[in-house]
């Protein structure tokens, strides 16, 4: 498979996440769109790792492909930690304003 197909797919998924962030007001949906963008980037990293698994890069450094996949693994680790804190913030927001509309937060006061 050509790498361009994977680049195109990742860009489409990333843009869908971007559009979702711009057109929704629900804080949970916005948060899910961030997860979708992270996943698009992960997919592209794995595709690039398999692109460099053969050829000159692999000759120079034999672990180059698994290095990239460990990078993806650490992105997942950070995403999991981020989700736990982010959802706690959203729950606190809901408890204080009884809404998850992000427009309630535009003053950052009261």
């Amino acid at each position, binding site marked *: 498979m050509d790498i*361009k197909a994977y680049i195109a797919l990742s860009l489409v998924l990333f843009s869908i996440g971007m559009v979702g962030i*711009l*057109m929704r007001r629900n804080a*949970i*949906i916005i948060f*899910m769109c961030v997860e979708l963008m992270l996943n698009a980037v992960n997919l592209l990293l794995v595709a690039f790792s*398999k692109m460099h698994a*053969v050829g000159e890069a692999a000759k120079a450094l034999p672990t180059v492909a698994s290095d990239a996949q460990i990078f993806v693994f650490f992105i*997942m680790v*950070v995403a999991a930690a981020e989700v736990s804190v982010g959802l706690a913030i959203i729950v606190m927001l809901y408890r204080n304003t009884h809404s998850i509309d992000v427009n309630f937060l535009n003053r950052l006061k009261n």
Partner: protein
Amino acid sequence: MNITTLLFIILSVVAAFAGIMMITSKNPVHSILWLIVVFFAISGHYIMLNAQFLAIVNIIVYAGAIMVLFLFVVMLMNLNADTEPVKNYRLRLIGVISGGSLLLVLLAALMDIDKQQLVQMNVGDAGLIKELGKNLFTNYVLPFEISSVLFLSAMIGAVIIGKKQ
């Protein structure tokens, strides 16, 4: 057209369609279920790239743990299509136009490669647990241990933020 290309097209169409359904459905529970479909499609891509460890971790961590957490929060708040805040038509149109422009610009910039670079499909042992584990516990053991501190601080932070004052 061989079976790999066919599977790639099917999984890509499923992922893009489910992503679009996720951002357009009114009910937040439906959005979460569509996002789970996207994650399964991406896991299918990982299996096609022979990154088996990441495919399983993606299903367990994202589709299993994170999305169940989202579902719990949505059901705890009793959200449905009636309470869903909507932006007005003009702002949504502006969002779609700017996202579409971003897609066009990035595609135009990145599709302009002369040399054809092929991705290794279905073979290669870089994504297997043996290789990844050996690399993770030799070259990357310090980041691995530091991530445990990150998890501890995230856990404490979530408890302190979520606690009633």
